[in-house]
C-alpha cells in the first residue's frame, strides 16, 4: 500500500507539473504571438525605410561591380579642355557617403575664356563613372561676347579604400 501511495504521489506530481507547464505555455502563447507580431511589424517598418535608398544602393553596387571607384582627375580634365593654368582648383573636401565611400567637393575658378570651352569641361566631367556633378555655378560674362569668368563647385563620389 505504501508503494502504491508513492506511485500515486509521483503520478500526481508529474501530472501537476505537466498541467502547470501546459498552462504556462498556453498563457505565454499570447505574449509570444504579440512579441513576434511586434518584431515582424518593426522589421517591415525598417524594410520600408531601407527601400528609400534602394536606387542609391543599386548605383553603388553597380559601381562596385564595375570597380568604378574614383572620378576623373580634375587637373587633367581642366588641362585637356581649357588648357594648362586655365583654372584654379581648390583641394577637394571629403565627407562620408556611407558604405566606405566619400563625397569629394572641389571648386574651380575658371579664368576668362570662351563659354564653349567651359561647356566642354562640364560635359567631360559628367561623362565618367563616378561622374563629377555640378553643384553651383557663378559666371560673369566678359565684355567680349561668348566669354567670361566662372566659378564652379563640383562633387563626385569616391571609394575610400578600393
Amino acid at each position, binding site marked *: 500500500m505504501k508503494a502504491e501511495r508513492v506511485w500515486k504521489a509521483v503520478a500526481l506530481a508529474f501530472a501537476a507539473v505537466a498541467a502547470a507547464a501546459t498552462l504556462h505555455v498556453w498563457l505565454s502563447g499570447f505574449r509570444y504571438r504579440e512579441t513576434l507580431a511586434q518584431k515582424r511589424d518593426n522589421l517591415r517598418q525598417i524594410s520600408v525605410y531601407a527601400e528609400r535608398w534602394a536606387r542609391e544602393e543599386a548605383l553603388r553596387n553597380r559601381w562596385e561591380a564595375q570597380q568604378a571607384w574614383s572620378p576623373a582627375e580634375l587637373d587633367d580634365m581642366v588641362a585637356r579642355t581649357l588648357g594648362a593654368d586655365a583654372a584654379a582648383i581648390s583641394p577637394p573636401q571629403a565627407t562620408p557617403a556611407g558604405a566606405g565611400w566619400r*563625397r569629394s567637393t572641389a571648386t574651380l575658378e575658371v579664368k576668362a575664356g570662351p563659354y564653349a570651352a567651359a561647356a566642354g569641361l562640364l560635359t567631360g566631367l559628367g561623362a565618367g563613372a563616378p561622374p563629377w556633378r555640378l553643384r553651383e555655378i557663378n559666371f560673369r560674362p566678359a565684355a567680349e561676347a561668348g566669354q567670361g569668368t566662372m566659378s564652379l563647385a563640383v562633387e563626385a563620389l569616391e571609394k575610400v579604400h578600393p
Partner: protein
Amino acid sequence: MARGFASAYGVDWAGGRLLLVRAAPRGAPQSVVDAPTESEEAVRALGAAAAEVSQGRAALAVAAPAVQTFVRRLHAPFASPAKAAKVWNALLDVELPFPVESAQCAFGSPQVAAGATTSIAAAVRKPDLEAAVAAWRAEGCDPTHCDVEALALWDQQNAEVPPVRGDLSRAVVWLGADHVALVRGRGTEFLAAHVLRIPPAAEQAGRSAFESLWAERVPRILAAHLAETGADGMDLWWAGTGAEDGTWLARLRQLLPSGGLRHETHRQPAAFLARALARRAMAETGANFLQGAAAHPALVRMRARAHRRVYLGIVAAALAILAMNGATAWVRGRRLVAVQAELTAAARAIAGDTVVYGEEVLAVQRALPARDAETEAWRSALDPIGVEGLLAGAIRDAAAFGIQIAHLKMTGAAMAMEGSAADAPAIDHLGESLRGQGWTIDSHSPGAAADGRPRFILKGTLRHEG
C-alpha cells in the same frame, strides 16, 4: 480492473459434479470439464486453473451459497447516485435479518428514474462467507471472485437469450443440487429472486418433500409476479443439473398453473451458472464478495499492477506533455531569436552598431536624417538633369529670346540672373519659359541699360514636385 486477466474460470459443484467453464476476452465461455468431483480429470482441471490463478493470469469465480445470500432492490429518494450511495448501507440494514456491519455486501450500478435512485444490493454474512471460502479451498479451489448466484443467472439469461420485448416477463428457474433459485424480471430488468431449499434426504424422499414446497410457493410467486408486471403470461427458462432430468422437470412443470406460462430449457443447462460466473468475472461486470480483507492475493496483486500501469501511464503522458511543452517553448524561442537577429541586422544596416535591443525602429528613425544626408551625393549622381541640365535650359532660353546675361548664379535649388533684353516682352517670355522648367520666378526691372535695352533681374527657386 480485470484487464490483467487473460481468462476467467467459473466453477460450480452440483451433486458431486464439478463444472468448470473458461471464458476468454473474446468468444463464448467454453466448458473445460464436467466430471465427478473426485475424478482425476476434475482434479487436474481444477489444479491447472488454480495454477493460472496463482500466477495472476486467470480469475476463478464461484457463486456464494444461494440460501445464505440476500438480494434486495433498494430505493433512495434522491436523483443523485453519489448521495444515494451514502444511504445504501442503512437501507440494506433494514432489509437484512442481521446487522449490515456483519455482512459482506455488493451493490449494483445505480439507476436513476423519476427523481429516485435504485440499486440492487446483495449481502452474505461474513461467517457464512468465510465458511464457504474454507470449504472451497478444501476442494482445491481458491476463488478470486465470489459472485451472487441470482444476479449471475439473470445476467446470463439476458446474455444468452436477450428479451424480444422490453416488457417481456420471464424468469430463470435454476434447479441446483441442494436448492432451486427462481429469478424473475421484466425485459432485462431484475425484479426479485427466490430460493427454495431441497431437503437433504434420500433423493426420492427429498424430491417429494420439495415438490410439496414447490407446489405451495411457486404458483403464488408467479401470480404475484404477473400482478406486479401486469403481464398475461411469462416465459420460464429452466437450467441447472436438475433440468437435465426430464422426468423431474416435467413433474415440476405439472405442479405449476398451465395457463400463461411458456417453458424453455437452456442448452447445456448444468453449466449455465458456471458460464455466467466465468463471463462476468472475465468482463468484471459481476459482483464480488471477496473484497477488502477477504480479497484474493492474486486479485490484489493484479489490481496493484493495474494501478501501477495507470500511474505509469499518467507519468508517461505527463512526460510527453512536458516534452511537447518544452519543444513548443524551444521553437518559440528560436523563432524569436531569428526574427530579432533579422531585425537587429536590418536596423544596424541603417543606424550603425549602436542599436539598443527593443529600440530598433527608434534608432533607425533617429538615423534617417544622417543617412539621408549621407546618401544625398548618390541621389545627386543619379539625377538625370542636375544643375548642368538646369543651366543648359536657362542659357538656351536666354539665347532664344535675345537675352544678354550679365551675371548668372545657379545651384540645385536657386538661381539669380541679371541682364538686358531687346524689349520687355522678351523678359516675360524668358520668365514663363523658366517657370515651365520648374522654377518659381520673381522678376523685376531696374531700368534701362546705357544702350536703351530694358534691364532685368530674375530670382528663382526650384519647385520640388510631389
